[in-house]
């Protein structure tokens, strides 16, 4: 009978964790290049509490367990900004950036130029070209980033295009193995190595990839969560009543003569 409380509790804990994830998704509904998280639940069957010698067959009790979260890698909406330093990636690839913590991968293409003339993310992390930062000269202007990621500028009074590097792209056969690292970046754990971007991946200059969080879906899921949370609470309180009644009725000692 106590199992009921514990099964209900396992569901409530899982629901609580899922709400936390939805809160994070909704908080990042306007974060460029953000990829929404989703949860996976699985059934956890408790080991049999009984021995084979019991007469009746014992039912195994199943609990809910949140087995994992996975990242929805679907592309977000592409918003035109007209800013020459905004890039969106059309295809399954990431920009490679150098952070203080090591190489990271991001889909957030809101780029800037820092005081040293290097192409950086809005966090100040260098955007890489074959492992080296892309650096602009003082007199560079009219920055053009081609579909294949080649950065060209016009230098000084010259009207000819001078190349400044190529945006390094990386793709992963199984992007689910990437870990989120905060600051809109992903980290490749040991043993997960980036591949070059697949053919057909294109860079779109002057546009930015928005978050792929679907507000409607998150709200619907949230209503579902609060409702099932309440339902389970009701079941648990009924279970409590049941036990209270049982205790109060069973404990009434039969009076003599009745």
């Amino acid at each position, binding site marked *: 009978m106590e199992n009921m409380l514990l099964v209900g509790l396992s569901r409530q804990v899982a629901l609580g964790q899922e709400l936390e*994830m939805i*809160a994070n*998704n909704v908080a*990042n509904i*306007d974060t460029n290049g953000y990829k929404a998280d989703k949860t996976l639940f699985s059934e956890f069957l408790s080991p049999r509490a009984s021995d084979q010698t019991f007469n009746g067959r014992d039912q195994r009790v199943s609990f809910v367990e949140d087995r994992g979260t996975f990242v929805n890698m679907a592309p977000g909406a592409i918003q035109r900004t007209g800013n020459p330093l905004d890039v969106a990636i059309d295809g399954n690839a990431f920009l490679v950036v150098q952070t203080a913590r090591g190489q990271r991968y991001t889909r*957030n293409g809101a780029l800037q130029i820092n005081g040293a003339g290097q192409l950086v993310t809005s966090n100040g992390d260098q955007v890489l070209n074959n492992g080296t930062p892309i650096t602009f000269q003082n007199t560079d202007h009219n920055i053009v980033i081609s579909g294949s990621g080649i950065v060209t500028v016009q230098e000084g009074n010259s009207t000819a295009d001078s190349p400044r590097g190529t945006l390094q792209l990386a793709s992963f056969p199984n992007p689910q*193995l990437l*870990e989120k690292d*905060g600051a809109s970046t992903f980290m490749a754990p040991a043993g997960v190595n980036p591949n070059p971007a697949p053919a057909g991946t294109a860079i779109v200059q002057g546009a930015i990839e928005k978050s792929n969080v679907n507000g409607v879906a998150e709200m619907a899921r949230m209503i579902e969560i609060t409702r099932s949370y309440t339902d389970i609470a009701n079941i648990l309180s009924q279970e409590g009543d049941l036990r209270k009644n049982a205790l109060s009725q069973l404990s009434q000692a039969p009076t003599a003569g009745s």
Partner: protein
Amino acid sequence: MRALDTAATGMAAMDLQVQVIAGNIANMSTTGFKSQRAEFQDLIYEHVQRIGAQASDQGNILPVGIELGSGVKTVGTPRLMTQGALLQTGNQLDVALQGDGWFKIQMPDGTFTYTRDGSFKQDSQGRIVTAEGNIVQPTITIPQNATGLTVNNQGQVSVTVPGSTTSQILGQFTITRFTNNAGLQAQGSNLFTQTPASGNPQDGLAGTDGAGTLQQGFLEQSNVEAVTEISNLIAAQRAYEMNSKVITAADEMLQTTAQLMR
């Protein structure tokens, strides 16, 4: 319940987004104004269960982990340094910069600031100044009885003085460029100052070394796009609302839990 704090970061971010949009819309017709954009990033994650952790003695590897994020942070409000539209005014001291670069202005304390607002005036001594009376660099003094003031594409200011048939060049505007325009610090009054992020100012002339050219009789309008701002405003307001709904949901769940105890 962490969802409460996470949703609160979302609400704070959307609040800031609306502030930025309000600033942009308020400056829709400010000469030389460059619109701002709030940029957000996700906060750190708690890896409750790491991806790739060993799941059993047989060496099975977890294909997915449990990552719980803790919300959103604002990483910056950079300005979009795109060209604003040129508005013809016909005023001979209105100059618009078309392309990269900034006018250099000397403040009363001797420091330099930079602006894209070319609605210049003359002060009592005939010097070319901004609408606030700060001197445009280099100091160009227009003789009292001069006529036919012309500013050419390269920023050379010339006038015709009585008794002469040829025009006389008075000076040439300094156009300053920065490596990172978005790194300049706004001072209000359409003025910007250099920061370590902007790089050092490179004084030059219009039309050379990548600097833009000048257009006399025009003003550069604000580059704020009303449609973009309004659609961003709608999105921000809805996102704020959704974050508040998450708080309500978390609150309801806590209440449900509290009611379990009687």
